[in-house]
């Protein structure tokens, strides 16, 4: 034990200094506000304007209203298509329109969106052909739209994995001198996955311009938020990564757009990622195949009707005098036409080409795949012959 004495000797002189004076609160600027940001009351009457989250221009809000109305009509139509067997399954986001549309309106077309299976409305709001949006659920291929051209990743099913992709994409873009922002949608349940942790942390460490947008709709299929976290709210996860965070009333379209706009500016200005938690609610079952009566009662759902984001924004815009019956009717007609066109196009059975299964496994099929393709080609030919004979 020779080290101790000398260590003590060494220690003595230098360490008589006082403990450094208490530093300022290190979590300052990283914690969310205790209450979700709100700019409109549920009935659409405005709350006092606030410094931190200036209200978006009214034209933007009007456009937001339009896309929310069309989005909801699309969503209702998609659910109807499942009943007619045109879609294998459909996860509705009715009730989450403010988040779905706000998440997209806050971005430029050159920014990247990382949607989940829940984000069909966000995709239509982004201007993606609704039939291409539904390709995955219709079952003729996986991703129906051109992800590269639309700067929109394929809808992600393996939960939270997109959080890491968004960090990488955003960092890669800035690394190459582009001011792209990536916005990753994620659900409340998915925040429990390790990839949420790793993704947000990578974004924070590399100061990647990402907005992590948590739509806390209170359920992961049947599992309530209380089984996902014991935290005061999901927005409190940000500080653990050094990521500024805030929470917003997800059914207040004005607040959602205001908060996301600031979050996107924060990211684009090189300050790194921002975490937003929106408190919202899905009015429909998890998917058309889900039986929600097993885990929540009608009253709970009913109560949320009072917080309908579309009614809320409509009331406000009418109040502001930028929306009247005529305008509402025009938008409603547009939504109807949109849905009708979708219905018609979805009635046509899509053409699928079995041999295309081999086209994109690799840039060039391996010899083994070429062999298998020949086998399938032969099977198809034989089948056609039989049909011919028949």
């Amino acid at each position, binding site marked *: 034990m020779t080290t101790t004495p000398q260590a003590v000797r060494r220690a003595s002189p230098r360490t008589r200094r006082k403990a450094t004076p208490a530093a300022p609160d290190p979590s300052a600027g990283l914690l969310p506000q205790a209450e979700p940001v709100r700019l409109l009351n549920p009935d659409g009457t405005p709350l006092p304007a606030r410094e931190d989250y200036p209200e978006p221009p009214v034209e933007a809000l009007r456009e937001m209203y339009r896309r929310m109305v069309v989005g909801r009509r699309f969503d209702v139509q998609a659910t109807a298509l499942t009943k007619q067997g045109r879609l294998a399954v459909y996860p509705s986001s009715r009730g989450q329109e403010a988040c779905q549309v706000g998440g997209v309106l806050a971005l430029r077309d050159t920014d990247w969106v990382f949607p989940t299976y829940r984000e069909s409305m966000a995709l239509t709001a982004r201007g993606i052909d609704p039939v291409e949006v539904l390709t995955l659920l219709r079952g003729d291929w996986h991703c129906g739209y051109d992800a590269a051209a639309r700067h929109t990743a394929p809808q992600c099913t393996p939960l939270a994995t997109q959080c890491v992709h968004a960090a990488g994409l955003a960092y890669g873009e800035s690394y190459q001198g582009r001011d792209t922002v990536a916005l990753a949608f994620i659900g409340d349940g998915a925040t429990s996955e*390790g990839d949420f942790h790793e993704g947000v942390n990578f974004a924070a460490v590399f100061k990647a311009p990402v907005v992590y947008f948590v739509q806390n709709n209170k359920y992961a299929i049947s599992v309530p938020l209380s089984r996902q976290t014991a935290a005061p709210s999901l927005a409190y996860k940000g500080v653990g990564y050094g990521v500024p965070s805030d929470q917003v009333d997800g059914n207040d379209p004005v607040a959602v757009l205001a908060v996301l706009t600031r979050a996107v500016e924060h990211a684009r200005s090189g300050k790194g990622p921002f975490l937003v938690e929106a408190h919202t609610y899905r009015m429909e079952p998890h998917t058309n195949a889900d039986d929600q009566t097993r885990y929540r009662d009608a009253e709970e759902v009913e109560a949320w009707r009072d917080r309908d984001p579309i009614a809320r924004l409509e009331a406000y815009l009418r109040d502001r005098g930028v929306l009247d019956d005529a305008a509402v009717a025009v938008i409603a007609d547009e939504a109807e036409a949109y849905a009708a066109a979708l219905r018609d196009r979805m009635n046509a059975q899509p053409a699928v080409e079995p041999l295309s299964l081999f086209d994109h496994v690799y840039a060039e099929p391996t010899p083994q795949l070429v062999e298998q393709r020949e086998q399938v080609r032969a099977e198809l030919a034989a089948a056609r012959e039989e049909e011919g004979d028949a």
Partner: protein
Amino acid sequence: MATMTMAKALNAALADAMLDDERVVVFGEDVGQLGGVFRITDGLQARFGDKRCFDTPLAEAGIVGFAVGLAMSGLRPVVEMQFDAFAYPAFEQIASHVAKLRNRTRGALSVPIVIRVPYAGGIGGVEHHCDSSEAYYAHTPGLKVVTPATVEDAYSLLREAIEDPDPVVFMEPKKLYFSSAEAELPARTAPFGTAVVRRAGTDATLVAYGPAVPVALEAAEAAREEGWDLEVVDVRSIVPFDDATVTASVRRTGRCVVIQEAQGFAGVGAEIAARVQERCFHALHAPVLRVAGLDIPYPAPMLEHTHLPSVDRVLDTVARLQWDDQPDSRWVAA
């Protein structure tokens, strides 16, 4: 005797196991009030309380690692992975801990847990919901891997899996969940490590497991028209594997086709083919052939039938078993 679905038999196995052994706890995503997306845990929470059957945070590594800890405390966790591809986040916990803990500690600690994995396709599921992942587990020493193809096996193998002192990856063929059959519960069928001849035949042996078994049986029926009398062996227990039954069958018939739904390359079917040709070389009139899924990511619903081993594909393959004892032209060419 009552007619019931495989889903119901699995549910009954869980209920009976929980009844017989207080240490059995069932958890995962949506297994509580919802009863699981396939309703395999239906009613368990209501019957046994939310401490015996409960929902967890949405995190598969967490679910499996939590089960490891519970097992260390003396419990017998049965966890549900909601779908095959959603067990991948738990791969490290499964490969580095579940499979190895007993060995690492010379038996001081063991991991008697069951990881239930609804797997394979044929249900029109979208991407990530139809993977056949059994080979990943079968290739990992320390895990047992079983998969039922019948209603009674579903019950019996699951009961045995829960009683087993070692970790069992219990692969449930989704497309068979709602297939039904006469079943007498509590049924106890052949134990782990036993393959079963589902159909006796003399001309060739079809070796299959899980979702491929019904295909094999259908093909064997259809083959009669072609004048082939095919034997069908249901592997049931991938690890441990029953060489004796498979070998005996192929020695009798002299020909063998191995059928699996998973992509073929380095799959369980490759192992079976390699074992059979080694053990039955002098009895074989033709090479052991394989019918497997294509070596592609699982296709979208409208294309899955092209991917899945079909009765026609099995028959085409049987036809290549060199009945004329002439070499396969495809390879002579090469």
